[in-house]
């Protein structure tokens, strides 16, 4: 079958990195991603299914990889060549539509789960991700054993599948379903704010949570904050008009341009600006971009002993951590999803919250464009420049692909 595949090629990664300065399309052409013929992956064992891809989103981490900016950290956690694509809605052989929870967790890899009922992303030992009967791979879309969503077909373990429409309130169109995975990521980041919000010194006033960046993940975080974290005043720094409109619609209290975020947080906190830093600031800041500049900005606007949640994959960044040290700021990663404990004490799967949220917000409104796999250069270029082109999410549409 024809699929998009990433090969391990240091030279291609280097060329992509250089070319990305010119344009995303050029980076795609010269980089490690090829539109090529690949074999359908074998079913690794019992409990595995063939999934025909219907829609597969293009994520920021995918773009980072294609443009050669991904961290060397992943060298030992992925296996080449792999087919990317982890934001997927697909179809099983019996016609059931499924949403993929892409983490290749304990069960998928033949290990006992860390606790009964654990989600694929749970656990505090990632050894299983690089061992077991599958090649290394943190998720579907980074593992050569399973394939990924940027192909007409891949394999997925039962533990990764959420069947659409089998539970009340879970039916949804493909265009909505493809947004569930990024929504789960954003909601997970939002819930990482909850403990700090609950522990704030002055519970009579809402906690300030700033969200820097309003792409799909940032917007999902805003939605998650508004729905699942009570007593928050949400301030969003969004660059583009459509992002600002969605941020407001998803429940932000204040939406400003990125340059205005620090002032907006200061106004809400009623604090001073001392040099580059606020004297107080947001209780929690969620960085949905992940560059040196945005992490630095987050550290500047987060109050002493507050938390910075890194939702956007940061890769190599250069930071002056003196402020973090002095202000005892907590830097918290927000990679994925699993089992969440809500502020009211209930536990549930992030994906269930994401399905609920995507349905309530009609998340398909964020899906701006779809492309066939063969137009991957245009698709990736569109995704890489989504904001300034008025788009939010771009996806591959394989519903008409010949399987």
């Amino acid at each position, binding site marked *: 079958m024809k699929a998009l595949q990433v090969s391990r090629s240091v030279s291609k990664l280097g060329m992509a990195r250089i070319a990305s300065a010119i344009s995303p399309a050029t980076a795609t052409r010269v980089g490690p991603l090829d539109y090529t013929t690949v074999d359908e992956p074998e079913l690794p064992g019992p409990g595995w299914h063939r999934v025909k891809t219907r829609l597969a989103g293009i994520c920021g981490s995918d773009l980072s990889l294609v443009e050669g900016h991904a961290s060397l950290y992943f060298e030992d956690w992925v296996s080449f060549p792999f087919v990317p694509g982890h934001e997927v809605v697909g179809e099983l052989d019996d016609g059931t539509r499924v949403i993929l929870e892409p983490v290749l967790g304990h069960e998928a890899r033949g290990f006992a789960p860390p606790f009964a009922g654990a989600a694929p992303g749970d656990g505090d030992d990632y050894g299983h991700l690089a061992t077991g009967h599958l090649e290394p791979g943190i998720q579907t879309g980074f593992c050569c054993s399973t394939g990924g969503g940027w192909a007409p077909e891949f394999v997925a373990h039962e533990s990764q599948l959420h069947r659409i429409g089998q539970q009340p309130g879970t039916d949804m169109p493909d265009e909505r379903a493809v947004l569930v995975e990024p929504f789960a990521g954003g909601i997970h980041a939002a819930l990482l704010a909850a403990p700090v919000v609950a522990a704030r010194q002055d519970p009579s006033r809402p906690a300030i949570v700033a969200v820097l960046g309003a792409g799909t993940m940032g917007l999902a975080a805003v939605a998650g904050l508004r729905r699942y974290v009570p007593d928050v005043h949400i301030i969003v720094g969004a660059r583009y008009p459509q992002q600002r409109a969605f941020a407001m619609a998803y429940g932000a209290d204040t939406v400003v341009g990125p340059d205005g975020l620090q002032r907006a947080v200061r*106004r809400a906190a009623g604090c*001073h600006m001392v040099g580059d830093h606020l004297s107080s600031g947001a209780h929690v800041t969620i960085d949905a971009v992940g560059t040196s500049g945005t992490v630095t900005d987050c550290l500047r606007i987060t109050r002493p002993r507050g938390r910075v949640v890194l939702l956007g994959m940061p890769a190599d960044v250069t930071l002056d951590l003196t402020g973090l040290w002095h202000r005892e700021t907590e830097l918290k990663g927000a990679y994925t999803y699993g089992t969440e404990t809500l502020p009211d004490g209930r536990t549930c799967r992030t994906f269930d919250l994401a399905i609920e949220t995507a349905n309530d917000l009609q998340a398909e409104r964020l899906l701006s464009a779809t492309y066939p796999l063969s137009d991957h250069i245009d698709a990736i270029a569109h995704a890489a420049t989504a904001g300034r082109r008025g788009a939010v999410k771009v996806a591959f549409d394989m519903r008409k692909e010949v399987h």
Partner: protein
Amino acid sequence: MPRPGFVLNVDRSTPPTLFWHGEGFRLEKLPADRSRVIYAPEPHDAIDDIDGAIRASLLNPIDMDPLPTLLFPGMKLTIAFDDVSLPLPKMRRPDLRQRIIEQVLTMAADAGVDDVELLAALALHRRMHEFELRHALGDRVYDAFEPRGLLKQHDAEDPDNLAFLGTTDLGEEIEINKRAAESDLLVYVNINLVAMDGGWKSTAVGLASYRSLRHHHNPTTMEASHSFMDQHASELHKSTWRMGKVMREHGPKIFQIETTLNTDIYPQPFEFLAKREWEWTAKDRALYLGTAKSVAKAPPRMARKIFQNMEAPHQMTSIQSGEVEAVHKITTQNVYDQQLVEVEGQTDILTMGIPYICPYNVHSIMNPILVMCTGLGYFFNLYRGKPLVREGGVVILTHPTTNEFNPVHHPSYIDFFEEVLADTTDPHVMSQKWEKQYAEDEWYKHLYRTSNAYHGVHPFYMWYWGSHAMKYTGKVIIVGGDAATVRKLGFTPASTMNDALEIASDTVGRHPTITHIKTPPLMIADVK
């Protein structure tokens, strides 16, 4: 003999009219046979012996004893003076404040007064920089007072240095600078640029706190002031008069010194800006072209510096001292004598070129809030009788109106623009919903008290200043402004004057009358 003001009826032979456009200019051809241009009176002659006139005034005050007789050993003397917002542009050295204060200090020294403090009457304006204080007071005064802590700038947020004097019959609270309030004599040194300035406004406003100022700096009062240049039709002035009455009863003895300037504001090589266009010589045209092209090509920062460094040759035309109200009556008449222009009837469209400067951006940036304030707060109010534009008419401003602010001078303006104007442009709504938060913001207070920042509430006051115009006019258009910024102000952007007139036709019809008020120099239209 200077020529009086003049109203030109535009015909086909009329050359294009010069409009200020921030740190630049536009030449606009206004429609013939239905447009007119109001030119300010030419500058009156300045007094030849200024120092002599100052001395004579101090020795022969109005309704008060001569200043030397009010001075005695052991007394507490405070000399307050207008801040950097006056005059515009700054005058060539020596500044009038220096000349007057030096003579007052000499008389105080002769009388054996040794408790003297100088006080800049900032109200909620920014603190003056050292170079600005030196310019206003002269190096000798500055060096004698500042190092000893005797040159102060009024701090409206220092509770320990404010004195509550009482309330008016309408419940308006009067709280002013404690040192001034407790002085045996408060000498106030004023430069009266427009008919709005001076009188009780000098002390009851210039030395007041937010608690006091909020009683008249609010949308209701501003909206009911028709105009600020016509004191008896101004609720703002009536409020300060009521406060003045309380100050007279419970405040310090005040020796008011008021001066007027002529309108000779353009130094070489910019004199052509004061000329009527049809009187431009070939040299004037060349100077215009050279200046216009130079500033257009210069980086904005450099263009700003060129204009902000301009020192005007304007000079004193009168000085009167003594009792506040008696003095101010004469001062106001002197301002009118220089600035009044008789204008017959109102117009459908009023145009105005907004220059690079207003009272609140000296050595700073004319930000969008100040563009609004200069146009709708100041220039719109340059009338007596009736507004130049008819009710429901259109006001057209020309200014680049960029989204640019000076973060040191105008920190709360940036937030006001981003936060408040995003929510509302209605002065009443913002006053209820937002003013308190900005007025009490600790960071703004800190910057006002220790840096060179306008008070947190100041952008609100600037917005209120235009309340009457906003309510009265049917549409406001800004020509040549940044479109997004203009829209955020609640106005309509237009790329050219012709576009603006086309847009205005929706409001005032296809053949409206147009009046351009060609200011600066300052003038007051006496609309019949």
